[in-house]
């Protein structure tokens, strides 16, 4: 049987350092996530615009909490606050 999709989707670009920052934190927190690689050209990055209202990456969508968030600083804070334990 196929496993269920992980609740966290990370919109990312290959070799984007801000995205890698989020990846490292997701891995450190042992969270499952699926990667959605998006169009490198900013002006064509409509897939991100539709979910997050911005064309920047990274963006995460967390179905468990209903949170959609851009900006790696904010995402790191969110992950730590939500999944970082007591």
């Amino acid at each position: 049987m196929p496993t269920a999709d992980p609740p966290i989707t990370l919109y990312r670009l290959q070799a984007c350092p801000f995205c890698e920052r989020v990846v490292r934190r997701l891995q450190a927190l042992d969270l499952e996530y699926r990667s959605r690689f998006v169009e490198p050209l900013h002006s064509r990055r409509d897939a991100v615009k539709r979910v997050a209202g911005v064309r920047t990456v990274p963006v995460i969508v967390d179905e468990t909490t209903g949170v959609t968030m851009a900006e790696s600083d904010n995402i790191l804070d969110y992950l730590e606050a939500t999944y970082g334990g007591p």
Partner: protein
Amino acid sequence: MDFDVVDLPTTTHPTPGDLAPSFTRPLVTTEGWTDTSLDTLLEAGPLTLVFHPMDGAFPTRYIWQAIADRDWDADCQLVGVSISTPYAHAQFLRDQGLTDYRLYSDPDAAVADDYGVSHDLDGMAGVTEHRPAVFVIDADKTVRAAWVAAEWPAFPPYDDLAATITDL
């Protein structure tokens, strides 16, 4: 006109009644890609799997144009597979106006191996790609129709395959 069509070696590939081999690869649209398993796609219903030469080769354009002209995606899910990178796939789909189509990227042709459709290209050292091949796969993973090129170049028997696709 004198030209040579090359015979390809015989191959063992899934035939009607067999189970389609599972795989996971980046599945590319004009907007990006994400690792996607064949099994996940089949949860949404039957599927036509089209193996094709790398993006940019003339048979690739011919095959996708012929498939688009026949609206194969009207009756059944439709995905392609080639060794081209996700970036090349996204560009190909944009260039050909195939904005609703999805292509798997299988750069090391390991999926070609699983399906018995590998093609070691003469004159391109170290490059193995996919023979032109089409598998129509039911939602329970049973292969309903299979066509694999026995010559190079060769093009799918579109109308025979379309009959199977509409019967699903």
